């Protein structure tokens, strides 16, 4: 596949407040690099992420969406990420069914201690999305930047 070196994808990352957002902070504290393409939105729990938000991001021009939450079993709210896991699995499966590229979506479990993992996950994800090129199958043409 041809990779456009100049393509800078827009990546939206939803991070739960208790684990993954703290994990992201930790990767900052440890000065672990990941691309500036990633912009984080803080949510109380990964189970707060409504499929609407994910579609909204793609509509508005995101090229990749990643959701990060506490590891299963470690949810601050005990069960939130278990619901997340089912919902997001089904949603991603549906997007795949509609022919949307699978690698534009991801769910990762990152604990507050896993700063290194957070950076590694983001590096990998940005690279994967770069390979895919701009999101064309699930964008709203009206929102495309002129």
């Amino acid at each position, binding site marked *: 596949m041809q990779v456009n070196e100049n393509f800078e994808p827009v990546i939206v990352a939803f991070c739960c*407040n208790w684990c993954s957002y703290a994990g992201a902070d930790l990767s900052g504290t440890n000065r672990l690099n990941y691309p*500036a393409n990633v912009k984080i*939105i803080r949510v109380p729990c990964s*189970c*707060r992420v409504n499929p609407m938000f994910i579609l909204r*991001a793609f509509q508005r021009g*995101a090229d990749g969406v990643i959701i990060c939450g506490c590891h299963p079993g470690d949810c*601050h*709210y005990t069960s939130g990420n278990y619901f997340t896991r089912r*919902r997001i699995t089904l949603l991603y499966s549906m997007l795949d069914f509609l022919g949307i590229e699978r690698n534009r979506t991801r769910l990762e479990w990152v604990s507050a201690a896993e700063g290194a993992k957070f950076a590694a996950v983001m590096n990998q994800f940005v690279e994967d999305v770069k390979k895919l090129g701009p999101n064309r199958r699930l964008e709203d043409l009206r929102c495309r930047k002129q």
Partner: protein
Amino acid sequence: MQRIGVFVCHCGTNIAATVDVKAVAEALSHEPGVVVSQDYQYMCSESGQELVKNAIKEHGLTGVVICSCSPRMHENTFRKAAASAGLNPYLVEIANIREQCSWIHKDIASATDKAIILGKAAVAKVHLNAPLTAGESPVVKRALVIGGGIAGIQTALDIAEAGFDVDIVEKEPTIGGKMAQIDKTFPTLDCAACILTPKMVEASQNEHITIHSFSEVSDVKGFVGNFTVTIKKKARYVDETKCTGCGLCTEKCPMKKVPNEFNMGLDNRTAVYIPFAQAVPKVATIDPNYCMMLKNGKCGVCSKVCSVGAIDYKQTDKFIEQKYGAIVVATGFNPIKLDKYDEFAYSCCPDVVTSLELERLMNAAGPNGGTLLRPSDKTHPHTIVFVQCVGSRCDDEKGKPYCSKICCMYTAKHAMLIREKYPDTEVYVFYIDVRTPGKNFDEFYRRAVEQYNVHYIKGMVGKVTPKADGKIDVQASDLLANEQLHINADMVVLAAAIEPDKTARPLATMLTTQMDTNDFFTEAHPKLRPVESATAGIFLSGACQGPKDIPETVAQASAAAAKAIGLLCKNSITCNPCVAHSDELMCNGCSACEKVCPYGAITYQDKEFRMPDRSTAIRRVASVNPAVCQGCGACTVACPSGAMDLNGFSNSQIMAEVDAICK
């Protein structure tokens, strides 16, 4: 019209070295609604906060965006600053341009661009922030302890010690639980009754403690600080207030063939009974399954002999309702039933017993007065085989996947006691692993092996077969010697796995607390909140949360008490205002939100509504109790109509952030 102030922090050079903070402030000053946009060396410093406060007053700000370090660091600092300047603290948003920007990027241009986008997202969000007020709800200064074993007793005593009223609900006629049935305790070998019964008496005499024995919790409503609990006092056909516990009725009762639960059915009791001599309350109870009077109206002996007229055959179940601020669950455990373990001949051979049965057989108050005799022929056993992990660490559906934790130690105790008292007895212990973590535990086990010559054999017992001569053939494998063994035993003792009491699951449903697949209550956090349930105001004490020995149980009981006391000390609870709320006009009443709420914060009620066409309709709608909701947001996604939303993280706020980032 919104008047938003943006404050960009340099954090010394932490931010300013990689982010052009002046450019960020300049760019954000052009965002809609932004009336002031400034940068400063250290925004969290006293003078930095002053800058924010002054701007709030000077510009009449309706929202504040701080571009700085992580909100996990200083969100509270800036909220407090805003509040002191008269702005609702929840109108402050933080853009994290340090941990999530300046510290991870090296290129100034891209880091600055990103910081601007993060700032724009925060501005977009703060446009939609609503002023929130933390609510308060009063705390009823009374605790309920469910279960009157050593866990429940200890918790109740500790709470009472702090000066709060506490009720114990115990389903049996007496408190004491499993510990009352135990003979000696490891690793000190002191007498269980000697350390437990004084506590039972102390509980019964404490002015702050009320014991509801022979009672069950039948309904729980409400939430942290304000539970309403219905307690069912089961009919015991004896007036507790009159009965003196003299025991005359139990002597005279003609129905003497009732299996005695306290002695694990190894001997009999009468239909009217007091479970054991030191029972608390020491009050008789009539067993309606066996009492001739209650069954067919022919007898009445107990009533005739009772000098205080305490017998009341017409007594019925009574329900009392009481309000509590905190509830502690201490429902304990039971050994599993072994009827599926045919290979150990438990059902067919009386000389194959469980460890708890052995406790009674060896107890001075037990069926044999403390002399260890075979149940079948009352002879002295010379060879005893202990089988470990019966139903524990088990892959199949007969048993439990977990380690029951206490068996290794009590078996060592049993083996040691038998060797001590009956040195002519050979004792074999078949084990998978011997697990002895705990203070003085391993020393204890080694004493059993080294000092008392107990034969520990790593291996499995394959089959136990009763023989015609009254002996028992134990067929086993010795994994270390790699050989098959046959032991000609007189008794076999099975270390049955322990499981949570059967009353726990319906109770968990009433309490809206969570359980794992084994029916143990789930703690709010396995490491950091081990004695709290995820449901606020519900605490966990003892083996209901997982297998435990006595010292651990008591430690957890006191910890649970401390947590309950911490709650009861408060006059009211301040609630997190970032909680879910339901728009009743949009709610369908489908219950999806209720099903995903881990806290039981959502209830439904039928309400009358005036419909747009001016008719009146009764609709089932959800409401969220803000005192119970913890703000996870699971319900907001489960709700298809969007009636459920979350304060501080509303659908529109998050979408505004998405839009700003993707712009």
